[in-house]
């Protein structure tokens, strides 16, 4: 057990690769949509600008990874193996809640050594689409929609204001795309392109939106005030 008098704030070690990140997952009737940006950084250098942060755990279960790239890859690999063993032993794929419980166990039991924020999402026969958010401490929270990563802080307001229940697949995809684009435009550690997966009973459909086709929002104008008055130029 860690020494409670000294807290290690600088979780990521020196030189460790960081999934800066904006990730999210949203449930809709019939499945889930998960999405992430594509930037991995080491300090201020972008080690990989086309990362795939949507990791396959099982046929209809994916997870979004944020935090330390090494930690999340290692944990996801272990859970991927557990899911395969489960299928071999029980003859049926694990439910999303079981996969999320596996993640939760790893993240909670090793909370002092790990720096991993994970969103597990997928489709199973018992519950249809479901989303589980597992932030840094290893707690597990089932939610209709979840956002995570450093870029998520900038879009809580947008998500709270925009989300509605009962959306179709297409509307959910739009929601995810817009949210991620907003997060990526404000967060330095997020960027690149958007990768999304739509997971339903029948299939997993991957979507890719390159950086130059991201939805654009207010980008500001250089000069404010009326043309007649003395012009104020924003540097």
């Amino acid at each position, binding site marked *: 057990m860690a020494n409670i008098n000294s807290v290690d704030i600088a979780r990521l070690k020196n030189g460790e690769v960081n999934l800066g990140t904006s990730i999210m997952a949203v449930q809709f009737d019939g499945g889930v949509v998960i999405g992430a940006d594509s930037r991995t950084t080491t300090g201020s250098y972008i080690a990989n600008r086309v990362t795939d942060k949507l990791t396959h755990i099982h046929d209809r279960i994916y997870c979004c990874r944020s935090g330390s790239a090494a930690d999340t*890859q*290692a944990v996801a690999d272990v859970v991927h193996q557990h899911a395969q063993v489960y299928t071999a032993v029980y003859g049926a794929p694990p439910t999303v809640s079981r996969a999320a419980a596996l993640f939760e166990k790893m993240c909670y039991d090793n909370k002092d050594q790990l720096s991993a924020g994970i969103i597990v999402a997928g489709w199973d026969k018992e519950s249809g689409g479901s989303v589980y958010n597992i932030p840094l401490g290893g707690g597990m929270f089932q939610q209709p929609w979840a956002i995570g990563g450093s870029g998520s802080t900038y879009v809580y307001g947008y998500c709270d204001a925009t989300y509605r229940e009962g959306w179709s697949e297409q509307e959910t995809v739009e929601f995810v795309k817009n949210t991620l684009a907003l997060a990526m435009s404000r967060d330095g550690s997020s960027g690149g392109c958007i990768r999304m997966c739509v997971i339903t009973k029948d299939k997993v459909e991957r979507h890719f939106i390159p950086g130059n086709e991201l939805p654009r929002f207010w980008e500001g104008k250089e000069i404010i005030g009326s043309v007649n008055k003395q012009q104020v130029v924003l540097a």
Partner: protein
Amino acid sequence: MVAKAVEAPNVGFDFSNYARNQFFGERLQGIPKATSTGTTIVGVIFGGGDSGEEPGVCLGADTRATGGPIVADKNCEKIHYLTPQIRCCGAGTAADTEFVTNLISSNLELHALSQGRPARVVTAMTMLKQYLFRYQGHVGAHLVLGGVDVTGPQLFTVHAHGSTDKLPYVTMGSGSLAAMAVFESSFKENMKRDEAIALVARAIRSGIFNDLGSGSNVDVAVITKNGTENLRNYEMPNERGTKSRNYKFRRGTTAWTKESIRSLIVSEEIKSTSGAGKDQGGVEVVAVPTGAGAGGEEGMEIDS
């Protein structure tokens, strides 16, 4: 100091050099830093598509090894062998990259023998990442892993903490930014073999000339399903210029009073070994005269 026969302990860690290292650390400017490969290493996937050539991987590396501000080795080999069709470039702590690639290379050979098929690049990647993750970054090996297997050419980066990325072109090491600049401007998919080699050489040269931690020569390795070509010292843009004068002293500059020449070989016996040694044409020579062995060629010339 009294010379005493030191018995190595049978168990536990051997701390017998600790006091000696501390003493040197105080005498010199601190304990010397581990040799690090400052380094520029790169990898690129080429071929396939409409290039008309076999798909493959081209790896490149510089050849400078540094120990702090000093160049410890001007021509070290940073492209390590893993399997006949897989190579690994290493940046970071030189000892760590050397040993981790050796270990995984042995394990891959055993794995291939037990599976009855050639090892895959993802297997090498998984072994490396699981080993490095276990050591939480203390094994300072940053690697560019490339190879060709039944699924085609593949290229990965493996960081010391155990994270990996799969990409069509990669750079690592202190010169990675200089090399990446070259790749980002000139990389295209489905390059021909010669184009890929030229691009890799340019990227390494960019690291050599713009990064203080990289230097000397360019090593290249080209891997396709037909085989691996090791182009050691493919380019040598830093050859030492010829000296304008002869700085040797002629024999007789220092006067001598007496000359006595003794052969250090008392007796020499050549014995061929039996068994495995014999099959390999092994001939055991008992004594080696000084100046004629491996080190002798590189030794100082007393007079020309």
